[in-house]
């Protein structure tokens, strides 16, 4: 992360120095957060849930992963696609991937992306639907462009193996 950020700063500085104007700049800032759902009692004395940052977890714990994208530039960003591998040692919770205005596809190998119900696995017993633990990649494709300053997030839940 630190290195990527520095690279970006470096490229931006270079661009300014040589006055390339429309040269490659990183216009989308992407932030990943890990949170856990916590049940608490609110001011009205009711049970409610909220997300709290998590840095530690146990096998069997559910982690809510959120990826936030923001367009930092003054032009619209088109064909925005966010991709996230399901972290190692975790299993995706079925039907938890969401992202407003996105088409969500999944992949077993990171190459072939399909809708969740279209993913299949061929093994000795024949062809069957992929199990949640076999889904290793998620991709969110936005149908509309990010206007300057626009922010959006995508989210999924996964359980520590």
């Amino acid at each position: 992360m630190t290195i990527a950020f520095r690279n970006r700063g470096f490229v931006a500085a270079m661009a300014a120095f040589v006055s390339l104007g429309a040269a490659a700049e990183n216009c989308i800032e992407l932030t990943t957060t890990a949170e856990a759902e916590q049940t608490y009692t609110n001011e009205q004395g009711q049970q409610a849930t909220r997300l709290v940052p998590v840095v530690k977890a146990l096998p069997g714990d559910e982690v809510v992963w959120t990826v936030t994208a923001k367009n930092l530039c003054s032009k619209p960003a088109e064909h925005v696609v966010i991709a996230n591998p399901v972290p190692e040692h975790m299993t995706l919770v079925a039907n938890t991937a969401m992202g407003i205005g996105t088409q969500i596809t999944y992949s077993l190998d990171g190459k072939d992306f399909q809708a969740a119900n279209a993913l299949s696995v061929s093994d000795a017993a024949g062809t069957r639907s992929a199990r949640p633990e076999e889904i290793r990649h998620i991709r969110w494709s936005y149908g509309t462009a990010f206007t300057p300053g626009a922010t959006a997030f995508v989210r999924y839940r996964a359980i520590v193996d």
Partner: protein
Amino acid sequence: MLLLALCAASAVQAAGTAAGTNIQSAAQVSYSFGGTSQTATSNTVTVTVVEILDAVVTVAGNASVAPGDTQQELVFTVTNTGNGTEAFHLAALSAGLTGDQFDPVLATNPLWFDTDNSNDLSAADTIYVPGSNDPVLAADASVRVILVNDIPASAADGQRGRSQLTATSRTGAGAPGTLFAGQGDGGLDALAGTSGGSAAQVGEYIVAGLQLAAVKSQVVVDPFGGARVVPGARINYQVVVTTTGSGLAAGAVFSDAIPANTTYVAGTLRLNGTPLSDDADGDAGELVATAAPQVRIQLGDLTAASAPQTLEFAVTIN
């Protein structure tokens, strides 16, 4: 080596992701900007798997005893079902347990590690001294523990006496979810798992008025067609186990040491004429191939009505 690696991998799977594992995630984005494709990567977020403290204790069947018997054994297995490496404190209890009719009396040294994996107290086994040689178990590893009691002379036929083994995580134990901050593997947090970090199991001694008698006979066949006891000669042993009296001998096990200076002939173990494999597997018999090898046959529950059990095996003279 490969086999070991595979075992380790499956062990970790069973106990959950190993304590100390860093789960990391970073997202990528691609987009286009005036026809030019761009990519960017997010920050990397790390979630560390903390240690879960869990144990399971199991017992390998009940023991059939007679009133006044001394040094009677129950064999337990303690398994670390947590996801880290953990030391366990062991404790034995015989007095005051519910559900039985007499209290066995713990031996002076009640707990032993079955160091030679013989399922029996033997010279190679090690006394357990609390705080001194607490078993340290990796995730999913287990240790066999022998619990030794004397049976009071007053115990009557058909009565049961219970004895309990408790294994408690040295890091701590408490209600599931109890936090032991910074006390887990590598200074990570540890949490009591569903067992609370402590597990107990009761074993039972059952007093049987039933007496088991074993009569052993042998036939020597020398390499020259005779019956002389010379190197290379084969000794075919036959043991007939009969029952007298009343009651039940629960989980009766016959074991017989392979005599010194002889070698067990592979594949010769039989029970009532049926061959048994030498491996510890689904059938009733096995060759326990330790420094002092022995044959063991599970006879099951025997009563006075049980037919005589005929056991056979062969050795050759070295």
